[in-house]
C-alpha cells in the first residue's frame, strides 16, 4: 500500500495527514508560521509520530497551499508590476486591470503601459513593436523600483515572438527583472490572460520564498521522496513550475478541500464550506467532484479564464478581526492569520477575533475561555448573527436548486459554523479540520500536451487521438494508474494563417496515483 503524506499550508494553519491507500492513518493541525518552513516541520513531525510510520516509508508528498490566493485576497505581499500591453492602436478602449477592484490595482502599483505592437488574427503585426517606448518603460521600471513585469501581446497564444522580444529588451535594460509572458499562462481572451499574467508577476518573489521553504522543510525532516504541489484542477505539478507560475495554485485550496470533503463523508451532492483562518470558500459538489465554473472565475475580484471549481470566497475565518461594538460591528476582512495563537484573546493576545466569539458563545473549546468571559453578550449575539448571515449569503450564492442538500463544513475555522445554515443541515466529518490535506494527498497525476499540429495529410480526430495517447503515456510514466485516466481538457484552436491548416491542440488527462510511481 502506498503511503502518502498530504500537507496543506493555509494562511492560519498547516495541516498534515498520512494516508495508506484510502485509509486516513493520522491527521494533525498546527499553526502556520511566518517563515512557512517551521510550520511544515512541526506538522509533519507530529503526523509521523501520530501515525507511527517511519519517514523513509513515505512514498510521496503532496502540498496544497492557499498562500498565493490569500496574498491576492488580502492584498498582502504583492509586488508592484509593470503591466505592459502590446496592441496599440487596437485595445485602447480598455486599459489593463480595467475590471480589477481599485485597491488591488493600487497594491500592484497601477503601472499600466499600452504600446504599439501585437498581432492580427492572421499573424500580421498590428504595429511594429515600439522598442523606444519599451526602453523608456524600462527606465521607469528602474527609476520607480518596480519589481516585475507582465507582458501581454494581442494574439500571443498563436504567436509568442513579440512577447519574447519585448521581454529580451526589458531584461537587457533591467538586468534580473522577472518578466511574465501572458502566452505562458493563458489562452485567447486578452483581458483575462493579461490579468492572470499581472497577478502572477506580482506573486513571483513570494512564490520564490515559499517554494524554497517547502523544499527545505522536507529535506531537513529527512524526507527524500519526491514532492509535488497541487494546482487548480486537483492535479499535481513539480516545484519549479509553482515557483514560476504561482497563479496555477489559485483554486487548489478549494479543490482539495472539496475533494477531501467528498472523500471523508462519502456524500456526493452537497455544498462545501471550507472555513480557514482568513477566508471561507464555498462551492458545490456534484457527483463527488467540485462543480466547475462555466466561463470565468473571480479571484480576489479579478476575472481569470483558468479551469477552476466554481468557488466563492468571503473574508471570514477563525482569525478574522472584529472591531466596533454591538450596534456597529465590523467583521473582517482583515485577519490575524497565522498569528492567531498569539493575538486572539483566548490565547492571551489583544485582538478580538471570530474564534474568541465562538469560545465565548460555547461553540468551541480552544485556548482559555476565562480570557473572553468579559465580552459583552450583546456583542457576541451581534457577531454570531452577522457570521451566520455571511455564511448563509455565501451558501445561497452557491446553491443552484431549492433541494435541501447538506452543507459539509470543513477547515479549522468550521467551529464558527452554526448547526444549520438557513434551512440546510450542516455535516462535520471526522478529520473535518484537515480535509484539504486529505484532498492534497489524493490529488491526481496529469499528463498534458499543448502543441501545434499540421492537419495536412491527416485528420483532426487522428491528431486528437495522438495527443490523447501522448498525454496518457506522460501521465502513466509520472505514476498514474492507466485504468483511471480521464480527459479533463481537450481544446483545439485553429491557426488560420499557418500553411497546412495548422491547429493548436491542448489536451490534459488525469488519473489516480498508482503503486508504482516515481
Amino acid at each position, binding site marked *: 500500500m502506498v503511503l502518502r503524506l498530504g500537507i496543506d499550508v493555509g494562511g492560519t494553519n498547516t495541516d498534515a495527514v498520512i494516508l495508506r491507500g484510502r485509509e486516513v492513518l493520522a491527521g494533525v493541525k498546527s499553526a502556520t508560521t511566518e517563515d512557512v518552513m517551521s510550520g511544515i516541520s512541526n506538522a509533519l513531525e507530529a503526523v509521523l509520530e501520530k501515525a507511527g510510520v517511519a519517514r523513509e516509508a513515505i512514498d510521496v508528498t503532496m502540498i496544497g497551499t492557499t498562500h498565493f490566493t490569500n496574498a491576492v485576497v488580502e492584498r498582502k505581499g504583492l509586488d508592484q508590476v509593470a503591466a505592459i500591453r502590446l496592441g496599440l492602436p*487596437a*485595445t485602447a478602449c480598455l486599459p489593463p486591470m*480595467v475590471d480589477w477592484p481599485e485597491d488591488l490595482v493600487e497594491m500592484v502599483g497601477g503601472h499600466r503601459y499600452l504600446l504599439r505592437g501585437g498581432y492580427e*488574427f492572421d499573424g500580421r503585426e498590428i504595429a511594429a513593436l515600439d522598442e523606444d517606448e519599451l526602453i523608456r518603460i524600462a527606465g521607469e521600471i528602474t527609476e520607480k523600483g518596480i519589481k516585475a513585469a507582465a507582458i501581454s501581446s494581442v494574439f500571443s497564444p498563436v504567436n509568442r515572438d513579440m512577447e519574447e522580444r519585448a521581454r529580451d529588451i526589458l531584461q537587457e535594460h533591467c538586468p534580473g527583472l522577472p518578466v511574465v509572458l501572458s502566452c505562458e499562462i493563458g489562452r485567447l481572451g486578452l483581458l483575462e490572460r493579461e490579468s492572470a499574467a499581472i497577478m502572477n508577476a506580482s506573486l513571483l518573489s513570494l512564490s520564490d520564498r515559499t517554494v524554497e521553504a517547502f523544499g527545505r522543510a522536507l529535506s531537513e525532516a529527512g524526507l527524500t521522496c519526491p514532492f509535488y504541489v497541487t494546482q487548480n484542477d486537483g492535479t499535481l505539478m513539480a516545484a519549479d513550475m509553482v515557483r514560476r507560475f504561482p497563479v496555477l495554485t489559485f483554486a487548489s485550496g478549494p479543490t482539495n478541500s472539496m475533494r477531501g470533503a467528498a472523500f471523508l463523508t462519502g456524500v456526493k451532492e452537497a455544498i462545501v464550506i471550507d472555513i480557514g483562518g482568513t477566508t471561507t470558500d464555498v462551492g458545490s459538489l456534484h457527483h463527488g467532484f467540485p462543480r466547475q465554473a462555466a*466561463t470565468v472565475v473571480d479571484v480576489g475580484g479579478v476575472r481569470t479564464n483558468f479551469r477552476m471549481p466554481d468557488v466563492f470566497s468571503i473574508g471570514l475565518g477563525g482569525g478574522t478581526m472584529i472591531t466596533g461594538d454591538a450596534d456597529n460591528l465590523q467583521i473582517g476582512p482583515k485577519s490575524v492569520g497565522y498569528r492567531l495563537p498569539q493575538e486572539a484573546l483566548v490565547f492571551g493576545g489583544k485582538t478580538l477575533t471570530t474564534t474568541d466569539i465562538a469560545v465565548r458563545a460555547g461553540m468551541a473549546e480552544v485556548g482559555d475561555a476565562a480570557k473572553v468571559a468579559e465580552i459583552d453578550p450583546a456583542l457576541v449575539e451581534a457577531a454570531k448573527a452577522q457570521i451566520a448571515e455571511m455564511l448563509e449569503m455565501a451558501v445561497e450564492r452557491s446553491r443552484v436548486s431549492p433541494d435541501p442538500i447538506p452543507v459539509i463544513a470543513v477547515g479549522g475555522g468550521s467551529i464558527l459554523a452554526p448547526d444549520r445554515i438557513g434551512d440546510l443541515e450542516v455535516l462535520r466529518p471526522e478529520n473535518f479540520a484537515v480535509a484539504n490535506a486529505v484532498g492534497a494527498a489524493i490529488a491526481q497525476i496529469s499528463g498534458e500536451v499543448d502543441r501545434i499540429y499540421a492537419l495536412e495529410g491527416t485528420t483532426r480526430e487522428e491528431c486528437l487521438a495522438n495527443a490523447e495517447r501522448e498525454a496518457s503515456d506522460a501521465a502513466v510514466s509520472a505514476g498514474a494508474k492507466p485504468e483511471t485516466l480521464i480527459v479533463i481538457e*481537450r481544446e483545439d484552436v*485553429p491557426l488560420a494563417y499557418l500553411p497546412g491548416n495548422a491547429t493548436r491542440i491542448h489536451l490534459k488527462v488525469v488519473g489516480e496515483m498508482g503503486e508504482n510511481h516515481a
Partner: protein
Amino acid sequence: MRDYQSQCRVLTEEDIDALEIGSGILGTGGGGNPYIGKLRARQAIREGHELKILPIEALEDDARIVALGGIGAPLVSFERLKEGREGVRCLRALEERLGFKADAIGCEEIGGQNSMEPLITAAFAGLPVVDGDGMGRAFPEMQMTTYAIYGHNSTPSVMCDPHGNAVCFEHAITEKWHETMARACVIAQGGASVLASAPMSGAFFKAHAIPHSYTQAIGLGQAVLDARRAHEDPIKAICEREGGKHVFSGKINDLKRHFERGFNVGVASIEGLDDCRGSVGEITIQNEFLIFRRDGEMQACVPDLVVVLDLDSGLPITTEVLRYGQRVAVLALPCHELLRTQQALDVIGPAAFGFPELVYRPLAETA
C-alpha cells in the same frame, strides 16, 4: 437635431449588467462577447457620458436613424479589443459623405456585443439609441436584418477599424453583395470592425424594426438575476418570459471549430444528462448556434433561437467560450413574427445557411 432628450430612458450601470445577460441570451452564442461591451459601456458612463434609449413610438416619420454594429469574428473581438471610437468615425464619415446629421442611432443586432456598440457610439456622439433592432437576436450576416429584408438599401455605408482606416461602400447592387464586400474588407482590417449603414427614416424604422429590443433584453437579464437571487430556476424564468422550451441538458463531449470565410464555424456534440441520458445532442455553429438536433433529429433551427446556457447558473455561453466538459442546457426560443414571413425565411431560414433539406417549423406554432 431633434429634441428627444426628455423622452429618453437613461441607462444605469445596473441596466448595463442586465443587458449583458439579456443580450447574451438573445445572442444565441454569437454577436461577440457582451462582457467587453459592458465594460466599455460602463467606462463611458463613468466618464460622464449618457447612454440613452428612445422609445420607438417617439420617432417622427422623417427622423434619420443610422444603424451600426460591430462586424467580424467574435474570436477576434475579445482578443484584439477595439480602439474605441470606430463607431464615431463611421458615423461622422457617413454624415459627411451624405451631408446630413443623424437624429438617433439604431441597433442592427440586439444579440451579444452589438447591443452595446450603438449605445457607446451614441453616447460619444450625444445621441439616443432607438429601442428596437434589426434581428431580435444575433445573425452572422448583414443582409439578415429586418431592415434589409423589408427593403432598406444599406449603402452607402462606412466601415472603420482600430488603425484609423475608413472604407466607404458606395453602392451594392444587393444587400448580399454588401455583406460579401464588407466581409472581405473586415478580414483585411483584422477581423473586428464597426460598420454604419445608410440612414433609415423614422417611418421605415417603426414599420420594420423588431420593436422594444433593449427593454426586452434588459428585462430578460433582470429576470435571470432575480431568479438567481430567489433560487428559482433561471432557465424556467427565461422559457416562461420568452415562450420557449428547455430542449436538452448535457455535457459537451466534442467541439470542432474552425475559422472559415471570416466566420467561426463548427459543431458541438453534447452527451445527455439527467432526463436526456442516453441521448446525444448536436449543435451546428456559424458564429451563432444555428441548429439543434437530438439523436440526429432536428428540434430547433433558425430563425428561432437556439440558446446554450450554463446548466446551473442559467448564464448564457457564447460559442467562443464553449469548452469540453461544460454542463449546458439548450433552450429553443421563438423568434419575432417579423422573422417568420416567407420574405424573411428566404434570407434567414435554414436554406439560407446551407441546409435546404431542413423544413422550418415555427416554435411559436408547435408550442
